[in-house]
């Protein structure tokens, strides 16, 4: 079992009360480290020629998926993007099945039919990464509509990038969600780059969150490199949505540390710019600094998590390498559902 769930506690009781439960803090860290290591490994494997297709890394944006999803239950829904590994892990997906999928193996989540851009786990409400920029908004709106009509109390979260904020689907989805007061939260990951094009050259407003006013919903800007800031903002929006308050828009400001895809020559920016961002805005470093300085977690506890994740990733890679490819007889499997008339 390689799901990144809360592990058993080996922590001694402390005399002070931290702002967050230590087990919760470990869960946040475990998931952020898992995303970082998974994607670093994916990049390495791709460059070594082991992965087909193309791969978009979530490195540097971990705090957003993890901070948001820490507010969700297993039955809540998320829709994701082409840069979706982080959303999967944050929602509780299994590392080994994700790894097998990006290798194109039949043991993967999608039996090798999807790959890096199309990982989904419907059993935990992860309605799929999406190869179409801006393709996820309306799926989230529909899932929220289903939740509202069936009065299940579920919430849907739609992750999307700054580039996607300029798709027409943004407008149609936010308006429909607002006019129907649907339990959906739109989480913008403003990583400053739409593929190779800088944010400010494509978007007239400084903050995408400003657009929320046009749909009659609250819009909030948060530091996307601070998992606690993201967690708190998402908590407010998700609780409000769950109680029938309608949709909200959160803009999490971050920076895309890696290229648009693995192998991107990155002719459009300098290495110095990336290094500078990484030095001051790495969400993992931010987390470690904050929890150790406050005495919420000890260095050994963090190191134990790092070691645990390293093991999980290494095992997932070994298993994925050894797993079989799909058989040619599986080409048509899953195209149509068989139960024509029920």
């Amino acid at each position: 079992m390689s799901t990144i769930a809360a592990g058993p506690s080996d922590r001694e009781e402390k005399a002070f009360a931290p702002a967050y439960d230590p087990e919760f803090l470990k869960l946040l860290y475990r998931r952020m480290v898992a995303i970082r290591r998974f994607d670093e490994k994916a990049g390495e494997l791709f460059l070594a020629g082991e992965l087909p297709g193309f791969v978009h890394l979530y490195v540097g944006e971990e705090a957003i998926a993890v901070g948001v999803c820490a507010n969700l239950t297993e039955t809540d829904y998320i829709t994701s993007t082409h840069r979706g590994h982080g959303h999967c892990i944050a929602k509780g997906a299994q590392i080994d099945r994700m790894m097998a999928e990006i290798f194109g193996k039949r043991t993967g989540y999608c039996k090798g039919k999807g790959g890096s851009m199309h990982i989904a786990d419907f059993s935990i409400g992860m309605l799929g990464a999406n190869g179409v920029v801006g393709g996820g908004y309306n799926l989230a709106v529909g899932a929220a509509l289903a939740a509202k009509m069936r009065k299940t109390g579920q919430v849907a979260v739609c992750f999307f990038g700054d580039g996607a904020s300029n798709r027409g689907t943004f407008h149609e989805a936010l308006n429909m969600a607002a006019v129907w007061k649907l339990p959906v939260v739109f989480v913008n990951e403003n990583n400053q780059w739409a593929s190779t094009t800088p944010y400010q050259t494509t978007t007239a407003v400084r903050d995408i969150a400003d657009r929320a006013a046009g749909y009659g919903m609250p819009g909030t800007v948060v530091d996307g490199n601070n998992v606690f800031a993201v967690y708190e903002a998402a908590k407010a929006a998700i609780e409000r949505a769950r109680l029938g308050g309608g949709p909200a828009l959160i803009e999490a400001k971050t920076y895309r540390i890696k290229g648009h895809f693995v192998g991107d020559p990155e002719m459009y920016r300098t290495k110095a710019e990336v290094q500078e961002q990484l030095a001051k805005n790495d969400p993992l470093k931010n987390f470690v600094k904050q929890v150790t300085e406050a005495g919420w977690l000890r260095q050994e506890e963090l190191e134990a998590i790092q070691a645990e994740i390293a093991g999980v990733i290494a095992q997932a890679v070994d298993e994925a390498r050894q797993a079989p490819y799909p058989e040619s007889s599986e080409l048509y499997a899953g195209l149509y559902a068989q139960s024509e008339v029920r």
Partner: protein
Amino acid sequence: MREITFSEATLEAMAEEMTRDDRVFLMGEDIARQGGIFGQFKGLPQQFGLERIRDTPISETAIIGAGVGAALAGMRPVVDMHFVDFITIAMDEVVNQMAKIRYMFGGQCTVPIVLRAPDGMVRSAAAQHSQSLEAWFLHVPGLQVVIPSNPADAKGLLKSAIRSDNPVLYFEHKVLFKMKGPVPEGDHLVPIGKAKISRSGKDVTIVSYSLMMQVALEAAEELAKQGIEAEVIDLRTISPLDEETIFSSVRKTKRLVIVHEAVKTGGVGAEIAARVAEEMIDYLDAPIRRLGAPFVPIPFSPALEKLVKISAADVVRTVREICC
């Protein structure tokens, strides 16, 4: 059997399926308060309420996309496109999302959605409100496409579409809404993927669907008077194509004519002609002929619009060319 209109038949199918399964709901533009631009939804809001019969903003990507999302979350939405021409606005939702989601996620989910799309020429609606676009979707794996020609099939295919766990595009010709015909009461289901032999004959096979079935049957009447017995096949489903029914008829008649209102180039007729040519050219005694609209947008003026419509006389002439 009692006779009702095509429109009433679809209404009956909707009401029966919504009563049977509370996951079924309907959304689209002008459907609840107005009852649909062709009256095809009249009475449903009174019976099922505005939660389940939802008027939407003019937002085609959201209508279809949210339909797909709701289907993924356990509902069985029926969405209305107003006019098939507007499906173009939401092609990503239809082609990249609705059609792909089940397969690309390894069969983890089903996408039980029905997309209803009134199509075809009526009263000089001109270039952007008159098209027949069914062939586009035959080209997309993952979709099912049905297209009834009469009230009984309208009911039976709609009920089957709603119960299908696959995404189904349901094309309904605007002229057909007023057509009256016998329709079985209660659970009348027409299977998806099965064509129907509407008239038996031995001399030529005419394959058609939707409104053009009336033209094909009228032509068959006339041909019979002239001593040519045409077998007329109503496809009813465009995808998956019922090859078996077409092939066995052509094996018998050795001649094939395909008739549709859509543009001939790249149309459903092209696919059928290609499959017959590939699989059974040795059976054919004459070239396959296709009748479809010329390669031009639908013009407004009645004087021009009539030039792009296929008539029974066109069908008779074409059949005679290959039979006589």
